[in-house]
């Protein structure tokens, strides 16, 4: 994914999934500007592993379904490609092995009053963006530097966890309305 120009908005993809009893996982990807304004939303139909697959994949089933299958499909089919994919589910970090965009796990709100923005820490694969600390895929340490260049676009009080609330609400709404059958 090529870096955006200064005039071009930096596009964020907020990727998360919810588990629906007896149906499996439903994933959603909300692509927004760096101000949080939505550009595109996409969600999957439920994806469920059968018992054999659960046995077959064992502990790797979660990262496989969430990261590779759901995340991969959503990013692949996105009409507007995000410059950075953010997720609040650690298992989705696996997606990085299958897409070209940097993928980061948004850790809990680590904001401390008066604390200055921390510079990129490539060694630990972490970067503070707004109120949150991001953790990047261990095998892609270069992502940290790549994104830290864009970090100036984000105000210190930017809340990167908020859009996940929107995505989950949208998924619940889609399930309720019956749009994901």
């Amino acid at each position, binding site marked *: 994914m090529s870096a955006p120009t200064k005039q071009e908005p930096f596009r964020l993809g907020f990727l998360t999934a919810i588990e629906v009893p007896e149906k499996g996982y439903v994933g959603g990807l909300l692509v927004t500007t760096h*101000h*949080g*304004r939505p550009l595109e939303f996409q*969600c*999957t*139909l439920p994806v469920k592993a059968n018992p054999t697959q659960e046995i077959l994949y064992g502990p790797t089933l979660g990262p496989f379904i969430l990261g590779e*299958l759901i995340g991969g*499909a959503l990013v692949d089919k996105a009409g507007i490609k995000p410059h950075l994919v953010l997720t609040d589910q650690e298992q989705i970090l696996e997606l990085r092995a299958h897409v070209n965009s940097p993928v980061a796990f948004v850790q809990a709100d680590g904001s401390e009053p008066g604390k200055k923005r921390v510079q990129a820490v490539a060694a630990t694969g972490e970067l503070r963006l707004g109120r949150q600390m991001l953790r990047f895929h261990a095998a892609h340490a270069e992502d940290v530097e790549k994104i830290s260049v864009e970090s100036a676009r984000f105000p210190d009080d930017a809340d990167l966890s908020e*859009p996940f609330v929107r995505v989950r609400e949208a998924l619940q709404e*889609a399930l309720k309305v019956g749009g994901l059958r």
Partner: protein
Amino acid sequence: MIPSVFSGLFSTTKAPPPPETISQSENEATADSAPVESTAGAKYRLDTAEIEPPTPHIDPSLVESAEPIAEISPASETDGIPGVQIHSSGLNGALTRIPKVKVIPLPVGAPIIPPPVRWRPQWPSVKTVKICFPQGLEFLPPKPEKPKKKPEKVKDPAQPLTAEDADATAEIVPVPEGTPPKATRIKPPADAISLEDRLFFLLQPPLETWLKGQEMVMPFEPFQYQYEGIAWLFAQKAALLADEMGLGKTMQTITAMRLLLRSGQAQRILLVCPKPLIPNWQREFKTWAEELPLTTIEGDTQRRQMLWNLPGSNILLVNYELMVRDMEAFGENPPQFDLVTLDEAQRVKNRGSCTAVNARKIPRRRTWALTGTPIENRPEELASLYEFMEIIPPGGTPDLKQLQSLAKDYILRRTKDLVMTDMPPRLDRDAVLDLTPAQRLAYETAEKEGVIHLNEMGDSITIQHVFELVMRLKQIANYDPLTGDSAKFERLEADMEEVAASGGKAILFSQWTKTIDWLVEKLQRFNPLVYHGKIPTPKREPILAQFKQDPSKHIILMSYATGAVGLNLQFAGYVFLYDRWWNPAIEDQAINRAHRIGQKSQVIVTKFISKDTIEERIDRVLNEKRELFRSILGCGEATTESLGMNASEIFGLFDLKARHGKGTRLIKPAPAKS
């Protein structure tokens, strides 16, 4: 060719199919099907997740020796296959099956070719549903923020917002440290049925984020109820914002329009308002959305035609009179809009009126109506508003329950009591005054003569005849035209002494410009300003500015008709109702010019009532009306009675009797024709 050394070794399995067949079946093997379906008839099986896929590699030593490999006996089923880890899942029986081995003949010494296809489990492709958001309009960026010289100071929402603030600061109010950010989410409206529509609203960011972001700078921090109002308006295709006067309907509307334009939901918006409010809207747009291009429809017919169709005009502002005139001129081809908003929408309360008919003709996708008095007189007026909003069919006559039911979805009304609990109070006090002797004499003479005259007219009297008498008596209650005596003025003068001494400012309302002109002469030492319908529109704004800025101007005299709506005079702490209007809603509108957001101190409202006059009777009726008004807007048990003074009530102000045989009978207005 080397003979296949494996042929015949696997006596318990089928003979290997031709290479093409094997290749195909191998490719078709999936995690779903292979381990389960292929167990039929097979005695041995490998856990495909734990072994490498078979390779075509053949050990040359095996070829050279050509020694048969020991056949796996059925006994190994129970012993298991050496080197194969038995899974603990309960499929152990299947796991003991011998693996299928693909045999590919290769010439001796041929290079080892890696397997052409890497085996991996295949899942059905994941199906997705997508919605795209329309591209928002780009406008000129707002002015860059001033460099911060002082430490950021958090503006307390409880602190009033004044027009001065608009000039003083252009900064976003920062979130206090440690305070969890507020989040006002846009909810899908009740009439949004499709998933796409509902998700569109659900996926919008919280308003606080949106408005505080660099995309849309707000001059002030809105109050929480204003955020909610903006979010509600943004989502509604038909909306009646009926907040009580002074709660910021204008600001909420402008901001919601701004969001619509920026999110690509609207490109052309028409705003219709009373003529005196045009400058007010222009000023408010400059304050709240300076980047939005606003075009005011004015000038001669040719110029107006050009303005209506001017490309790039996102927001058109027009007064009611010009809207009516131009819509009639457009005939069957009026311009189309994404949103039409009527300010002071009670102007379309009469369905058959020219204004209502022409407003309904404007083609649009969304309709908003703004009014602090959705029911000014009768509930039927609300039906007319609903018809304009296209939520009831043309000519529809919903009953009261239906009106109330629709109100839940389409009306948002908040009162100051509800949302501005920390707003300075409004103190109403009735100044019940005895007329001066000269006034009393004039009043009683006029009343006696007037009633006698009406009685003599008998059944031929009309509402106009009674109305004329009422007006004459009210004027005498204001001041005696012969002597110039006025009990009200004496009281006013005394009160104004206090107001001026404290550096305060007062607004006085009267229904007569004649009374206002008379008062101007008498109040010269308080440097009065005059604002009524006879003042040309271009001169009105400077008068308001002077009243606001000049500390020597202690009072402004206004007519109800011109000054009661849309003006922001929250710097005035005193309101005098020199005489009473016919409708309590209009009086409230007048009072709320001062008692509104931005007011820093309590507002003292003085209502002058002349004792033992028609004003006392009118006041009693108005109080009853005010209670009825509250009950309807509060969804209480209401009737369809008029909220303003109707003909019966005006007749009832006097004891009018006609001769009837030997006695008399009460004179009543003729019943209205259906």
